[in-house]
């Protein structure tokens, strides 16, 4: 601990020297060696004894992580590094590689400016390498490449120098392809990596050596020599000649941007306020004297300290006692304590400056994505752009305590968990009184249950259902124009739904269209996307399941006053579709006309909301509603002799193969697989390939379910929810004259 204190007090001194700060993350596909590599970085700082580095995986400090050998949370740590006589402060975040935890990577990316992308030399660029790199590029986080596990190429695959060259070149090519495809216009060329420039390092995290071309030249080491050393079992000395931390940290310091450089282009991307305003300029320039602007990227509930909110300070500074304001929660707080995370430890400090990552205590309503501003700058503060996730919670389980009287306790810990993990959705099924937990995949939910028990003190027994797939309701053709009356019959609304076009849905998924942009900016974006001006300009609401409400009325009296109520009814209807109570997705809902009672008493929410819902559902049912099922993207890496088995397994499960590429002795197969067919895939895959396949699935998209499947889904879901077997008719929701 004293070592940690020493480093933090040194770090605080360095916080002033913005050009010597790096905020970085380690991102990769699962198991490619992020945490192992980070071990090496800790040794230089003296935070870890070299004798256990590479095996300790210090940042996997949760019991569950050590037990499973995978990272399941993000971990922050700050390091000092000396390079050419200057001291640097490196704020580092280790991230999980398992696809179920992608959301945590997404949030971490908002806090950092650069990333070391780790790629396993044997497996090469994989599905999740692509996912995290794409997201980094989208957040304007600059990547460098570390090709890890080179020892395996030599020892396991027994490749010669030439073959290794080919493999490494392919990885670099594939990686640069990702940058070319997903990079933003300004960066797609500039950010390509190149060994000659020092933006690629090679090595073995397990054996703690690594180099860049530059280092190899300086130290006069050749690849063939490394191969020889391994063959002669003399590779142990490599760690002293080519220490991995030197290669990585030199690459980080030289090629990843400092906050001064990064915030200049990142702020306009993540914050759409007026750049010439005081806050805009302060954040652009990382001004420690300006108003404080900070984005929260991580929240944890500490049983003793309460909520701990961690995030990146873009401008100003934070110290204990400061008055700050949360823009989303609309609440002012006094900061109780400021701290830095050093792995598992939170070290209290007096003050943290712009350009760094800070942990704050005392802001109980802070959530990931929240915008924090100093209280005296709160007026008109524009929030940061929302954090958009690539994945959606598509698997659900029902949970209940074994002893019914422990329900309040279960609800309590569920709430805590959903605060810490925004990708875990907890909900109550009103009909059956079931408590539902929805997550990214089976592992996500398994871990969630573990945490629930742990948070409850270990003695809460929880019964869980088997995992269920989450579906969506949607339509493929426009519905009828429908009139719906308020329950008291005094107000009428004419409503029509139609499918929302794919392009608009994509804009929402990419974060290019979000409700917080405001009506004007949404209008501009939609006009550019080809929407008729009249519709583009009148977006009333954008609901979380990609449904849009458009006001197409002309001069309806009092409409303005019922607007929010109508929106609430629209959202309500979208939450629970009429087919089987699953959310509706991808609908454009048009309010065409309305006639309202002139007395406000007669047109309250209890009148307007049900009418909005009726009209929406009526028109939806009169269209041609369909069930959408979630589809995984699947990537399999398998020795070439098993390709046939894998392919037929995937096809048998209603999957599709989209590509198959031979990479050395392995073949990488990619394709799509309905989530509902993925249960039990492990066992099937194991028996089909005798356990030789490595594979991973990640949510990719929603697709119309085949008729037979959708019929079954509707019937089963309705039964489970205690609904009558028949789907209601449209006429039930439509009023005549």
């Amino acid at each position, binding site marked *: 601990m004293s070592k940690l204190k020493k480093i933090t007090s040194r770090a605080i001194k360095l916080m002033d020297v913005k050009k010597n700060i790096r905020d970085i993350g380690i991102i990769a596909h699962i198991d490619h060696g992020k945490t192992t590599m980070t071990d090496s970085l800790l040794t230089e700082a003296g935070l870890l004894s070299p004798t256990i580095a590479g095996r300790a995986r210090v940042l996997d400090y949760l019991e569950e992580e050590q037990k499973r050998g995978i990272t399941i949370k993000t971990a922050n740590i700050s390091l000092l590094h000396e390079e050419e006589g200057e001291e640097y402060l490196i704020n580092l975040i280790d991230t999980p590689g398992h696809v179920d935890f992608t959301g945590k990577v997404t949030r971490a990316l908002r806090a950092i400016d650069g990333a070391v992308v780790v790629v396993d030399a044997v497996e090469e660029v994989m599905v999740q390498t692509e996912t995290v790199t794409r997201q980094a590029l989208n957040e304007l986080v600059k990547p460098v490449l570390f090709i890890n596990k080179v020892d395996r190429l030599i020892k396991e695959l027994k490749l010669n120098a030439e073959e290794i060259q080919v493999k490494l070149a392919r990885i670099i090519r594939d990686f640069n392809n990702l940058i070319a495809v997903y990079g933003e216009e300004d960066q797609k060329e500039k950010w390509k990596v190149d060994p000659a420039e020092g933006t690629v390092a090679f090595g073995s995290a397990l054996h703690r050596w690594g180099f860049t071309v530059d280092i190899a030249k300086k130290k006069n080491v050749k690849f063939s020599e490394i191969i020889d050393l391994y063959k002669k079992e003399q590779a142990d000395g490599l760690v002293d000649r080519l220490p991995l931390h030197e290669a990585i940290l030199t690459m980080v310091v030289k090629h990843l941007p400092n906050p001064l450089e990064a915030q200049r282009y990142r702020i306009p991307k993540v914050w759409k306020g007026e750049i010439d305003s005081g806050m805009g300029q302060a954040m652009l320039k990382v001004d420690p004297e300006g108003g404080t602007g900070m984005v929260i990227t991580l929240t944890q509930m500490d049983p003793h300290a309460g909520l701990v909110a961690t995030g990146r300070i873009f401008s100003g500074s934070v110290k204990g006692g400061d008055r700050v304001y949360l823009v989303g929660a609309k609440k002012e707080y006094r900061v109780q304590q400021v701290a830095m995370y050093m792995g598992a430890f939170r070290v209290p400090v007096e003050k943290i400056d712009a350009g760094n990552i800070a942990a704050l205590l005392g802001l109980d309503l802070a959530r990931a994505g929240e915008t924090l501003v100093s209280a005296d700058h709160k007026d008109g503060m524009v929030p940061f752009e929302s954090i958009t996730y690539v994945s959606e919670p598509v698997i659900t389980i029902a949970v209940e305590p074994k002893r019914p009287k422990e329900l309040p306790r279960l609800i309590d810990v569920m709430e805590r968990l959903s605060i810490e993990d925004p990708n875990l959705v907890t909900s109550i099924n009103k009909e059956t009184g079931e408590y539902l937990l929805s997550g990214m995949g089976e592992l996500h939910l398994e871990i969630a249950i573990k945490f629930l028990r742990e948070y409850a003190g270990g003695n809460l027994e929880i019964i869980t259902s088997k995992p269920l797939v989450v579906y969506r309701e949607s339509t493929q053709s426009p519905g009828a124009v429908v009139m719906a*009356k*308020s*329950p*008291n*019959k*005094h107000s009428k609304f004419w409503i029509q739904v139609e499918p929302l076009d794919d392009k608009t849905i994509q804009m929402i998924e990419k974060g290019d269209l979000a409700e917080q942009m405001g009506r004007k900016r949404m209008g501009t974006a939609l006009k550019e996307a080809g929407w008729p001006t009249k519709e583009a300009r009148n977006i009333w609401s954008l609901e979380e399941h990609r449904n849009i409400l458009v006001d197409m009325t002309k001069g309806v009296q009092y409409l303005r006053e019922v607007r929010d109520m109508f929106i609430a009814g629209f959202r309500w209807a979208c939450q629970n579709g009429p087919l089987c109570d699953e959310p509706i997705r991808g609908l454009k809902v048009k309010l065409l006309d309305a006639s309202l*009672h*002139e*007395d406000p*008493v*007669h*047109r*309250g*929410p*209890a*009148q307007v*909301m*049900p009418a909005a819902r*009726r009209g929406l559902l009526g028109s939806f049912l009169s269209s041609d509603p369909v069930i959408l099922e979630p589809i995984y993207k699947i990537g399999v890496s398998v020795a070439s002799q098993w390709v046939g088995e894998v392919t037929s397994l995937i096809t048998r499960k209603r999957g599709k193969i989209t590509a198959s590429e031979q990479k050395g002795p392995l073949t990488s197969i990619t394709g799509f697989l309905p989530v509902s067919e993925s249960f039990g895939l492990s066992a099937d895959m194991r028996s089909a390939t005798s356990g030789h396949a490595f594979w991973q699935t990640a949510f990719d998209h929603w697709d119309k379910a085949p008729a037979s499947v959708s019929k079954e889904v509707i019937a089963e879901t309705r039964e489970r929810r205690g609904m009558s077997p028949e789907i209601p008719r449209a006429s*039930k929701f439509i009023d005549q004259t």
Partner: protein
Amino acid sequence: MLISGGKDSALALHHALVNGHNVKYLVSMVPQRDDSWMFHHLNIHLTDLFAESTSIPIVKQETAGVREEELLDLKTALSTLRIEGVVSGAVASTYQKHRIEKICEELGLKSITPLWNRNPLTLLKELLTLKFKAVITGVFAQGFSRSWLGREITSKVVKDLLDLKRRFQISLIGEGGEYETLVLDAPFFEKKIDIVESERFWKGEYGYLLVKKARLNEKADPSASADIHGAS
């Protein structure tokens, strides 16, 4: 006195009587449509019993129930009577109050609104203390369910209404047409109304209780009361 048979007009009548007004007629508008902007329509046929039990003559006027035309019908009805003023049960709806005031002005009558601007919760409590017996005969807003139909207004019901007000911002006394009531007994009733036969209709988001048969009984006679929950 404009009456619908519901609790507001009954309470207004009570105040009018207590304040010493000479209530000469009960005027009941009978709309032909179910979405009248001004007047209650449910069980409006029961105003006959209401009148009988108060011994005040009733004047019934049919109305098409179409927006502004309703007012003309009301005006026609009032213009035939020899009266000085009109009592109504408006509480918070300026719409209703203004319409009536306008007609009164045109006819040179005084508009009397004893309940105007009074706190809805106090009004409900007053109904309870004065031992009005009012049952809910229709619910037309989000939050209500079938089981509300036929409930007598008790302190429990008031609590439930408060809950709905909090959740859905309904008007506590149902002035936005959220619910309708039928008064079966009031301090000024000489006899009470007993429902003999009724039927509940539920339409998904709203519903009503249609009273098919009702009669007057002596107030002290307990044997004649029928269980209105039983019918459906």
